[in-house]
């Protein structure tokens, strides 16, 4: 990266596991989340949600609710008739509140703003709605039936940020299709020595950020002001502005700490309903989802897929063919992008003679599906890597050998026209294989597996940032990345501190305020350190340039002779502290300097070709299965954080550890259930189980790989999602190594027991070969 070559590789702030700047405030309960905030004159909101999966609305009567003392406003779709009330960043398919039709159980139909939550809840129960039932299509097979009613009608309208070229027409309930067609797959399958074939089912999963979707909205003569736990404040600002017909500058969004995100708070969610209420009530409104409401606000896509892989007798991968359907629920949300990402992940990071992918994004009458950590990649890495291991078994190779033989090497093309591979995947696989003991002797009902994949990371690379120095020498980093647990404020401080030669702890970093903090496209796609971090690094360099200008005049030497250090600028043994530089510049204790930095798709290389970088998705797992119950214990897990340069190694490890547990939940027990009538079957944490301390692997290893091959600051590239993409495949490959073949996740004890006893019909004590 040319822009980082001026920086010395010897660092003091970067590369050090500095303690998080926000940990103390959070553990003491001082850190404010949206739910902890209150603004003057604030009302509380409750939402009336559809009890049916698919219906037309023939009547809504809000008069009783409006008459309840303490109710200030009841809002329905009819209150939005002066607007185009549809939103959706990919496809503009979603009304803020149901208009004439509901499409899933839980769809917002009306909302009440009242003096307190109990009053709002009581008023919601007084709203009368008549529904005329329509056929409910609560699963992929139901929605894909040729006779199925269309869940959406009329022309398909592109959203503000669909980023998918020309949006195709809807085909039945398929809202988006993504295809890859390279080489002559049919011919290869007809003549290949080995063909592995399978059908797979991947469950819908709930992100469960512990803090649910929360927003406070006000609407007055100045416009809209929001306090929202959104990951992408500038994209939400644009959508809210478009919905309410305001210029974006009149929508101001404050983003405090987020209680987890994992993709569930990406793009626009509950903000429009809160704004609609504030607009009608003329007072600020606070809206906090319950968990069951957040579960139908967004979730991970369920998938059904069929895949074939062809290989030569000596284990060379030749061709792959995939048809996959993703259940995006009643509204597209990020489904089209998830579908494209799944399609791109289908080949895996291998050399192929032919690849055919047909991926479709399908509407169903269930809660909308959007982003969840490593979206799309997780689904396809799971099935693709299952088939690679099956090829290995049939051709007598071990899991590492087959990958060594077929994996792309650094510099090779991953997808036509895109960024070439920027990581040493074979080295990464060898590390996890060693950590979990692939190839070591093992007992019965024990298995080990690895998996490897790539995730196109960075999203659209536009970030801007500023670094401000006050007359006192105090420094603040203005960067709009959302702190949702990953530690971005600490990492940003480290990056700026390294450039300015001061301790990271002296740099203040706050959350986004779209009125004053610079534009950042989004916090997701593992992009903050890499893209926003680079913008911030450039801003710090710009500030430093201004300081050097003043210091050079003071010392009366060329600026190249001045060094950064000792809390200021040094020429020989003379030191000018930063406050002194500021006084020299402004002639009194006052004034301020602001450095600016930006990243945009320009020139050649990572930021123009896309993706910004390939996030490495590598993990290994050792399982131990109880043959009596089918229960799977994870005895070892290992991941590789191939991050180029770890700005804060401890925070990198935490990303991988947390992603590992989420991956294990996804692989072993997490699954959202929707009944045929569209009712959620497990919408509480009692029934929807997430990992607890009891699920922690006995041995958990995170190997940090630092090859300085990233396009971010100091050679860094992002992490945190790859491990989640890799774990489900590693788990099922380990199970297959123990003789248990799973084609449907989660690998519950029942499924494992059935698979185990299907493969061993007579005698469970039969000896397994190691």
């Amino acid at each position, binding site marked *: 990266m040319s822009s980082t070559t001026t920086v010395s590789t010897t660092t003091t702030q970067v590369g050090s596991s500095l303690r998080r700047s926000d940990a103390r405030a959070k553990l003491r309960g001082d850190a404010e989340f949206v739910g902890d905030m209150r603004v003057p004159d604030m009302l509380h909101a409750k939402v009336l949600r559809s009890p049916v999966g698919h219906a037309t609305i023939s009547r809504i009567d809000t008069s009783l609710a409006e008459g309840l003392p303490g109710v200030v406003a009841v809002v329905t779709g009819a209150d939005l008739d002066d607007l185009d009330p549809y939103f959706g960043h990919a496809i503009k398919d979603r009304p803020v509140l149901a208009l004439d039709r509901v499409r899933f159980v839980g769809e917002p139909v009306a909302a009440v703003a009242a003096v307190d939550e109990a009053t709002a809840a009581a008023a919601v129960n007084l709203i009368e709605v008549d529904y005329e039932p329509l056929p409910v299509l609560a699963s992929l097979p139901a929605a894909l039936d040729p006779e199925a009613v269309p869940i959406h009608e009329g022309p398909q309208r592109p959203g503000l940020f669909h980023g998918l070229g020309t949006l195709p027409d809807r085909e039945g309930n398929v809202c988006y299709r993504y295809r890859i067609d390279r080489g002559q797959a049919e011919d290869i399958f007809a003549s290949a020595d080995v063909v592995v074939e399978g059908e797979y089912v991947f469950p819908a999963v709930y992100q469960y950020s512990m803090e649910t979707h929360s927003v406070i909205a006000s609407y007055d003569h100045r416009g809209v002001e929001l306090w929202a736990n959104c990951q992408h404040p500038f994209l939400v600002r644009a959508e809210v502005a478009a919905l309410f017909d305001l210029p974006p500058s009149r929508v101001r969004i404050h983003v405090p700490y987020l209680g987890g995100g994992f993709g569930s708070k990406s793009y626009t969610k509950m903000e429009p309903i809160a704004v609609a209420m504030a607009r009608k009530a003329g007072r600020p409104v606070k809206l906090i989802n319950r968990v069951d409401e957040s579960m139908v606000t967004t979730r991970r896509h369920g998938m059904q897929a069929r895949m074939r892989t062809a290989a030569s007798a000596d284990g060379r991968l030749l061709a792959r063919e995939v048809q996959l359907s993703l259940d995006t629920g009643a509204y597209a949300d990020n489904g089209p992008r998830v579908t494209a990402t799944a399609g791109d992940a289908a080949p895996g990071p291998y050399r192929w003679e032919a690849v055919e992918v047909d991926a479709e994004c399908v509407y169903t009458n269930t809660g909308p599906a959007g982003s969840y950590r490593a979206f799309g990649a997780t689904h396809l890495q799971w099935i693709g890597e299952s088939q690679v291991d099956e090829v290995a078994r049939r051709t007598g190779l071990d899991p590492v050998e087959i990958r060594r033989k077929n994996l792309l090497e650094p510099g090779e093309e991953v997808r036509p026209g895109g960024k070439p591979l920027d990581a040493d995947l074979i080295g990464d696989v060898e590390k996890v294989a060693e950590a979990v003991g692939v190839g070591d002797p093992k007992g019965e009902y024990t298995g080990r597996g690895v998996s490897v994949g790539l995730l196109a990371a960075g999203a659209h690379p536009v970030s801007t940032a500023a670094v401000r120095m006050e007359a006192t020498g105090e420094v603040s980093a203005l960067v709009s990345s959302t702190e949702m647990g990953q530690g971005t404020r600490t990492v940003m401080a480290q990056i700026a501190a390294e450039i300015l030669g001061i301790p990271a702890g002296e740099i203040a970093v706050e959350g986004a305020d779209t009125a004053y903090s610079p534009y950042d496209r989004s916090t997701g796609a593992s992009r903050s350190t890499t893209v926003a971090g680079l913008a911030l690094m450039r801003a710090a360099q710009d500030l430093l340039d201004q300081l050097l200008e003043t210091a050079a005049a003071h010392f009366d030497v060329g600026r190249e002779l001045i060094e950064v250090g000792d809390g200021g600028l040094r020429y020989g043994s003379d030191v000018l502290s930063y406050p002194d530089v500021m006084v020299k510049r402004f002639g009194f204790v006052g004034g301020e300097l602001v450095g600016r930095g930006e990243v945009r798709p320009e020139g050649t290389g990572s930021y123009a070709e896309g993706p910004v970088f390939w996030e490495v998705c590598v993990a290994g797992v050792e399982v131990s299965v109880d043959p009596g119950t089918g229960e799977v214990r994870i005895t070892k897990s290992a991941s590789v954080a191939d991050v180029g340069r770890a700005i804060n190694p401890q925070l990198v490890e935490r990303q991988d*550890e*947390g992603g590992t547990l989420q991956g294990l939940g996804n692989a072993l027990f997490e699954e959202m259930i929707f009944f045929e009538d569209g009712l959620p079957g497990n919408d509480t944490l009692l029934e929807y189980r997430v990992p607890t301390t009891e699920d922690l692997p006995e041995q958990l290893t995170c190997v940090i790989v630092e090859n300085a091959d990233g396009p971010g600051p100091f050679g860094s590239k992002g992490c945190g999602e790859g491990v989640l993409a890799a774990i489900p495949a590693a788990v099922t490959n380990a199970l297959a190594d123990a003789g248990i073949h799973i084609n449907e996740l989660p690998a519950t004890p029942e499924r494992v027991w059935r698979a185990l006893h299907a493969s061993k019909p007579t005698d469970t004590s039969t000896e397994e070969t190691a």
Partner: protein
Amino acid sequence: MPENTTTRIEAEVNGAPISAEVEASTLLLDFLREELLLTGAKRSCEVQVCGSCTVLVDGGPVSSCCYLAADIDGRSVVTIEGVRDEPGFEPYERAFIDHAAVQCGFCIPGMILTTKSLADEGELPRDEEGLRDALSGNVCRCTGYRAIIDAVGDIAKAVQR
């Protein structure tokens, strides 16, 4: 608000006496957060699974999302706000910070109060299995638990003889 029955409670919250009129149906979590503005206890699952609303009542951990405010009458309630400035809090703070066991932080006040209730009784385990068991009623979606267990293990050594 529809008619409801209220009841008067006299209790001690974070060492200070309080007296209040509460609806019979008011949850302790709402009473703490909305009436007393003690927002360190967080609302999440609402079914006593996640532990993010954990507070101590007469020294023992309860899920304040499923505990009536009326039932604190005559009792002592401690929230994170009541322990964070105590002299004995430093080892808790240090352990969680040093292990980077705080990510989004939403679950941490609950984790700390669960830990503290055991430590105060001298019952905080020091072994891996015991620690996992002790913390199994507090969900964290960010960290993957390794760092939290290590932090609480350090606390067990530091605060218990």
